[in-house]
């Protein structure tokens, strides 16, 4: 049995600040599935990342509360939850690392194959060919 999808969606759509993350993640997923260019796939991954980060911040947001900054003028305990924001900072750093590494890999791939289009990339097997066995048929051998 599936979860009640419509209920989930209704719940999500009832909160306006979930719209953006939902949109970003959907675009990202669509991009990863449909794009034939590796760089566009990486960008899609970045979109999903950003979407999720915004989602996390919105989870910690409490309607009508202030930014969690202590100062003489801010009233104590009328803050939004600061921890998700701290977590997102870390997540952003990690995301940058992953995206940077991905870009590096793409440069390597481009150096080697001269293209980033999946259709033009034939996964090179030349260095494996000699390790394959040839007479591997399912026959019983007469």
């Amino acid at each position, binding site marked *: *049995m*599936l979860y009640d999808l419509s209920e989930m969606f209704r719940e999500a759509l009832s909160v306006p600040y979930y719209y953006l993350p939902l949109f970003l993640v959907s675009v990202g*997923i669509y991009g*990863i599935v449909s794009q034939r260019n590796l760089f566009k796939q990486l960008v899609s991954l970045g979109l999903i990342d950003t979407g999720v980060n915004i989602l996390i911040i919105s989870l910690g947001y409490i309607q009508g509360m202030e930014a969690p900054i202590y100062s003489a003028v801010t009233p104590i305990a009328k803050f939004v939850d600061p921890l998700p924001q701290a977590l997102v900072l870390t997540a952003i750093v990690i995301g940058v690392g992953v995206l940077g590494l991905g870009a590096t890999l793409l440069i390597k791939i481009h150096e080697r194959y001269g293209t980033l289009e*999946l259709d033009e990339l034939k996964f090179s097997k030349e260095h494996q060919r000699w390790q394959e066995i040839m*007479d591997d048929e*399912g026959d*019983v*051998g007469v």
Partner: protein
Amino acid sequence: MQNILLVAIIGSVAGYLLSLFYRRLGPIILLLISLYAFAMLWEIPSNTAENFLGYDVLYLTTLGKYFALLSLIVFSAYAIFNIVWIETLKTPHAFNALSILTLAGTLGVFFTTNLVVLYIFWELTVFASLFIVPMSKSEAKRAAVWYVTITAIGSFAFLFATFLLYSKFYTFDLVEISRNLSQLPKPTIWLVVCSMLTAGIAKSGVFPLHVWLRNVHGKAPDTFSAVLSGQLVKMGSYLIALLLSIFPVTTLFPHFYGGVNILSYILIWLGNVSILVGTLMAIKQNDMKMLIAFSTVANSGYILIGLALLDQVGFAGGLFHVFNHAIAATMIFLSFAAVVYRTGTTKIDELGGLIHRMPVTFITYLVGIISLAGIPPTSGFISKWMIFQSLVSRGMFVTEIFVFVGSIGSFLYVFRPLAGVFLGQLKSKYKDVREVPIIMQIPMILLVLVTVFFGVFPGQVLEFIVGAQKEFGIDAFQYEGTKLITSMGYWDTWIVFVMFAVGFLIAAVLYLITPKGKKIPLEDQYTSGEFLHNFDLYHYASRFYAFLEREYGDHPSLENLYASLVNALKSLGKGIDYLVSRTASAYVFWLGVILLLLWKGW
């Protein structure tokens, strides 16, 4: 028993190391171990329990002792033969070590009634022998994979049943399990017994799991084929015999026909089909080793029928046939090994007339096939006669027809190598061929003597068989000296032997006093004035049974069925491999995520 097993296991390491210095030491060690084990085992009374490495798992039944002694005879002959034959191998040390390990494993199988220990030794045997199979011909590689896979189908089914029984009774001891087996529900009993028998069926090469025999026997190192056919296949028969007799099969399964229960009836039909398939396929073979491989299928069918009858005469006949076929197959494969040792080929139509050059080999083969075809006075006749008696007394006429056709067919196929390899004209290519060295002749001569001796005086073998029958509560087979008694009469092997001996003498005298025929070379024949460029084409052994093969040339092949099954599995694997590709994997990944996230459960 513990000592024997330990000696054999340590011996395999010793065999490896000593063979590094001198390759002939390996077979000698195998021989010594076999003789030692034989002497030790002879003294151990049956129904002895022993510890193995501190575990109380070894238990010697009379049945196990019978099979173990038989195996040791086969291994001794194999060892002696190998002392010279080992020269032809590129990897003698591994061959020696694995041969000894095979012996250790197979003895372990016969020494225990603990299912897990039996499984362990079973697999030890399979894997030790597995790596011997491709040692002389590289074409045997695929054959070895088939060997291990089909054997594993059986042994995993066995393991499944073992654990199923364990989850019910919390013991692995077969004797204890058999006492309580009837408490289980009927479907479970069917499942358990059939799964366990699958192991025996796969190993003994009974239809429908016989497809591995042709290539494994045919392409294995020549002497090892003798062990494969003479000994390892018998391990399967042992398991069938043990399971059928230790489980109260007759009470567990309802009676069906001719006083035979339904399980036995099914097994008998498997035996029938094996006889038919083995015989028909053997007739077709031009490779002499593959020919005898199919004959092994047919004979495993005989053994299965005998064992499945589970009565006074038939069960004894089945067990006796185990002995006869083991010895006969060993003789035949050793004589083939001798032929290959000298000529280098196993193709029947490339040989001929070797009787003039290799008389001892010829006699070994001749006695071997006489026993195999079941012609008196050899022991092979007795066992077939016993199985036949039992079938007749039950009125199972369809099975009788199969058994009878199998016997006739066996005359046909054993004659093909006889005529093609040994009789006829000697090819000029082989005119310098000599008899094999004396050490190779010794085991062949010994086996000839064994066959003839037990054909005339089967008492010792029958004593074991009767012991095994008594042990499992089957009516014991009746015999007095050389007189074998059944409900329909008796057969006195001594009288028959004397009759045959007299007949043989008369024939010999006639042969000596009549004028000799003229020997002509192959080239000297009638050719209608044609000049012959290739005399081989005129060899009568090529397309020997063409007139018979025509009749069933387009038969459906189980080998092809299995091969296409494997190919179907591989195509499925290819599908999985396609999913790995970048395009597909993204879709599959997200499908997986959606499935796991949203599917709440069934």
